[in-house]
């Protein structure tokens, strides 16, 4: 399978003061998220991978074929690349109906009317869009528009899929639901997938690996766990810091795997996302007194020094990233593999419904 993925070394100047210098390598079937604040160079990466912007230096190779290699004089323009793109705001053509939007790529590549119609029908069924073929994009819900954008990108059977902020056009309520349907659709695509986002939740829940981009370069790369434990920049610490668990809530209790968390919100029900800030967790040598309801015995697995703070990864039953001061860590005599007690106040946990209807 190696060699069918995406290999990109991107070097491009956008202005006197801003340039992008990024290396990306994504395997088939892998989802890599490019996570960064606005202005970090994410849109440039999208444009370069899609072929809308040529590189100054570097090389892009997809499925063994060079797409852009200025040194070798190679540049495959956008319309000859096999890169499917779901654009930010979807960019569905407003004057074309759903069927024509989805069929646009095939028609542009010279596929006949009848065959296009048949394949469009297949994709509409596959993405649960039957009955909407004659609708104009302005008459679609956010979720429908997203699926149309996906169908439009996937119908040409691209070698890679590029998703540019696929959820940011949606309101918060719809976002959680669509994130999960998107995950299902991503799994159905065999090539490398690149997700561009500024939302850490999106990156951690949809991607296998996260690349943090800041000011035109990758500042960190790894899994969600890596980023939480060893954030290399303030931005990474801030966005990647929060422990995030998907669980199911009833009566102020959230079941995460075999573990139960007690939350302040007793009304919330069904699938939820629980967020716990590393600074909201306290560590103790013995079972804490007055016993906060969320307290359990665990082991210190990894300790990482971060300035005057220490980030600690705890083990079973519910892995957590905890941040305490160096002084506190010393006072507790914490070392790797030592036992410890964690405690979290119910009010320190954020609970957000993951299945709004």
């Amino acid at each position, binding site marked *: 399978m190696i060699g069918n993925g995406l290999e990109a070394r991107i070097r491009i100047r956008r202005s006197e003061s801003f340039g992008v210098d990024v290396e990306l390598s994504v395997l088939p079937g892998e989802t890599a998220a490019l996570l960064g604040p606005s202005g970090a160079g994410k849109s440039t990466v999208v*444009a370069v991978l*899609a*072929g*809308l912007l040529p590189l100054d230096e570097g090389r892009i190779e997809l499925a063994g074929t060079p797409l852009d290699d200025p040194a070798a004089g190679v540049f495959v*323009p*956008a*319309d*000859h*690349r096999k*890169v499917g*793109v779901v*654009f930010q*705001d979807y*960019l569905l*053509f*407003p*004057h*074309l109906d759903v069927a024509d939007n989805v069929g*646009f*790529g095939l028609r*542009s*590549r010279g596929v006949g009317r009848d065959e296009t119609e048949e394949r469009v029908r297949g994709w509409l069924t596959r993405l649960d869009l039957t009955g909407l073929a004659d609708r104009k994009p302005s008459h679609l819900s956010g979720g429908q528009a997203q699926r149309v954008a996906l169908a*439009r*990108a996937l119908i*040409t059977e691209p070698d890679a899929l590029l998703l540019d902020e696929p959820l940011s056009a949606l309101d918060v309520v719809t976002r959680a639901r669509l994130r999960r349907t998107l995950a299902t659709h991503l799994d159905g695509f065999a090539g490398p997938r690149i997700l561009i986002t500024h939302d850490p939740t999106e990156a951690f829940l949809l991607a296998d690996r996260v690349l943090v981009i800041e000011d035109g370069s990758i500042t960190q790369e790894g899994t969600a766990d890596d980023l939480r434990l060893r954030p290399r920049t303030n931005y990474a610490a801030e966005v990647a810091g929060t422990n995030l668990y998907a669980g199911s809530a009833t009566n102020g209790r959230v079941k995460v795997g075999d573990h139960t968390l007690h939350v302040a919100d007793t009304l919330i029900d069904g699938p939820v996302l629980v967020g716990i800030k590393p600074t909201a967790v306290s560590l103790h040598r013995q079972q804490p007194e007055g016993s906060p309801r969320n307290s359990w015995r665990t082991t210190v697995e990894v300790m990482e020094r971060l300035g005057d703070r220490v980030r600690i990864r705890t083990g079973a039953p519910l892995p957590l990233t905890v941040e305490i001061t160096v002084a506190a860590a010393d006072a507790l005599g914490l070392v790797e593999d030592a036992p410890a007690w964690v405690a979290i106040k119910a009010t320190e946990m954020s609970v957000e419904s993951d299945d709004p209807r």
Partner: protein
Amino acid sequence: MFLVLPLAGIVARTPWSALPGLLTSDLVTDAIRLSLITSTLATVMAAVIGVPLAWLLARVEFRGRSLVRSLVTLPMVLPPVVGGAALLFALGRRGLIGEPIYEATGLLLPFSIWGVVIANTFVAMPFLVITVEGALHTLDQRYEGAASALGAGRLTIFRRITLPMIWPSMVAGLVLTWARAFGEFGATITFAGNLQGRTQTLPLAVFVALESDRDTAIAVSLVMVAVSLFALVSLRGRWWRTR
């Protein structure tokens, strides 16, 4: 008041009962036919030359772009008579290009129906170029990028995405161009002359009739006002509906 008064003048002086007779005279029917044909042909020519030009100005960066843009808009501010004279110097029998064309083919552009069309196009095309270029600038170019990423070449993008998306402005520009060509006087009379049935358009007919036959002049003026108003009102309706 200042705007309505001249119109009221025309309406007040219109000899309503004699109107049918006046409007069916040879002078008038010839001029109406010629005007409709030439301003329509001029609009077509303006579209064929002007739309690619507008696209070039809006989408392609090249040296001297602002110079080209000024040149395109020049006929809008130039006195039409000067425009006509310039056309004569360029395309006339002794003109810069006119002479070799005449010697090679015997084709004489001035004082022919094609002279009228060229004069009309020269004066009216800027309206189309400016409207279309403006629309192209306002259009979110990311749609064209999306089409490109879906495998569409430049021509397909223009035909299936750009043109339909700027269509309301395109129509507005075409109507304005047509209306301007329909009312063209100065460049036409200078470059194409004033021959009834061949180059005498409606505005020229009004000018001639004012000397000899006031009633006809007024009747023709009324027709022109009606046509121009109709064009502008239809334009307004379209703008209101689509924006």
